[in-house]
């Protein structure tokens, strides 16, 4: 009895958060409403400035420190919010092995026949999300294979080739070369982190690989010399970028300056998800501070999203959180975070100069 009452109270609370697009509780009605309700929310077009001088889309790449941190939920809802601003948005499902972004967007799953599994997979699918200026690019089969599977690369390449204002890439939780390069090339690389040791450790591991790749990949002189120094460092003496720069300065000061500039231009964004306490939310500043102290990397804190049952409920209903529960605290936080990302798009010329 007590359990039933709790369930009822929970349902009432979630209904209150649901806002204007209320849907009947029965699964059948919810499914019927999928195609109709997405257009109910008012457009926010014109509320946020947009630089029309931009060439090509603004690319946001999201990587999870580890599996299950909520990268897909965040990617889907950031894409929904940006499309509500009147931008043409494409979101890519680039998570290796288990593409499920469609579930968070209310798009039908792919159901390949047994016979089709015996044929070549074909090109990626590009589906429009009903009622929005938002398209989903995904592999033609739900299980796309490992990180380096051609299908995954094709999804990312197809997405980046689409004519759009904003591209959101859900890169999953792996640190393979394709993911690292895509993350580094994005206008905003976002690490989604859970506030617990394993998640934070995996985040550092990913960023470490990304930073090293940024410093030593390429065929220019600074990269070659830095790579040579690291390859000769059998005692792991060059454990931080500052030591690498110092060692490089002794042999080639110009190369050392170039490597230092690359470290400073590496500005990943850190987003904490599923925070359950104030101490959890404060962790984002701790991570940013630690990266600056240890590696000299100017990571940017993108915010902290609190744990919210609304995420779970919206996933159960297979609809975007921002549409199903627009009044929830989590939806508001995601919107705020997406606005910060958009601010980057507007001031992009400055970033471009810095990179050069």
């Amino acid at each position, binding site marked *: 009895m007590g359990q039933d009452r709790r369930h009822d109270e929970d349902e009432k609370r979630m209904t209150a958060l649901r806002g204007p697009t209320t849907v009947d509780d029965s699964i059948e009605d919810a499914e019927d409403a999928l195609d109709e309700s997405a257009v109910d929310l008012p457009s926010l077009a014109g509320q946020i400035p947009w630089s029309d001088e931009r060439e090509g889309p603004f690319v946001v790449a999201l990587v999870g420190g580890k599996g299950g941190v909520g990268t897909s939920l965040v990617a889907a809802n950031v894409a929904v919010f940006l499309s509500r601003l009147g931008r043409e948005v494409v979101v890519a499902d680039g998570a290796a092995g288990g593409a499920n972004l469609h579930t968070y967007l209310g798009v039908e799953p792919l159901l390949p026949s047994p016979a089709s599994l015996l044929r070549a997979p074909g090109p990626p699918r590009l589906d429009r999300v009903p009622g929005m200026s938002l398209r989903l690019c995904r592999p033609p089969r739900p299980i796309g294979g490992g990180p380096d599977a051609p299908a995954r690369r094709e999804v990312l390449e197809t997405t980046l080739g689409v004519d759009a204002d904003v591209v959101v890439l859900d890169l999953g939780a792996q640190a393979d070369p394709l993911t690292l390069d895509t993350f580094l090339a994005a206008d905003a690389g976002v690490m989604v982190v859970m506030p*617990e*040791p394993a998640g934070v450790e995996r985040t550092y591991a990913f960023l470490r690989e990304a930073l090293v790749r940024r410093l030593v990949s390429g065929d220019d002189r600074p990269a070659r010399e830095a790579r040579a120094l690291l390859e000769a460092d059998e005692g792991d003496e060059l454990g931080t970028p500052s030591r690498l720069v110092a060692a490089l300065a002794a042999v080639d000061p110009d190369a050392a300056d170039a490597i230092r500039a690359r470290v400073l231009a590496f500005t990943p964004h850190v987003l904490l998800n599923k925070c359950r306490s104030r101490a959890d939310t404060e962790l984002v500043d701790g991570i940013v501070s630690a990266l600056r102290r240890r590696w000299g990397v100017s990571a940017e804190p993108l915010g902290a999203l609190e744990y919210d049952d609304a995420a779970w409920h919206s996933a159960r209903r297979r609809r975007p959180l921002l549409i199903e529960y627009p009044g929830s605290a989590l939806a508001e936080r995601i919107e705020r975070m997406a606005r910060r990302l958009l601010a980057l798009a507007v001031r992009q010329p400055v970033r471009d100069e810095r990179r050069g």
Partner: protein
Amino acid sequence: MSMDLGTSYYALLEIDPGANEDDIRRAYKRLVKLFDAEGPVVYGLYPDEEVETLSRALREAYETLIDADKRRRYDLGLFPEGHPSLRRADQREAASQPRRRPEPPADPLAALDLPETTPLRGAVLLRVREVCHLSLQDIAERTKISMFTLRCIEGEHYADLPARVYLRGFLRQIADMLRLDADRLVRDYLAAYDDWQRTFESKSWPG
């Protein structure tokens, strides 16, 4: 690069050189909590021995900056010509100090060169206040009389003044601040007030 954070205690504690004791204490407490060896922030980024080194550096920075003498000596070494933000802090401190006023005259009425028989009423109070370099705000802060009442007293807006018994008390407080003869101010001002009161009553309740 910012790996050289250790070169400045301020950078190490992530505070401005103009930070006060509370800022320093708060920053240290926050960083000790964040960079706890058992916490998630350092896990996977710092080797154990470097966590200990960082912890010692934070403690050293805190103990130096929280001690006024040690901090002064440290600042002299760090900013021989004074750090801009420290100078700004000095300016803020100077701005927060009470403004030095010119000493009011011992006999303000004599300074105004008014005839002995001039009744002390609103207009005279205004001139005396000005010669004493006091604002209405100054009087309000000292006496706790509201600005509205003070304006009414100086403007002789009798209808808006409080009851006579309160007015008498206010006038005595004002006389004390303006170095006036309190009995004379009360007598002159209340005489005018009573005149107005009589006129007001005769108009309101004729007969």
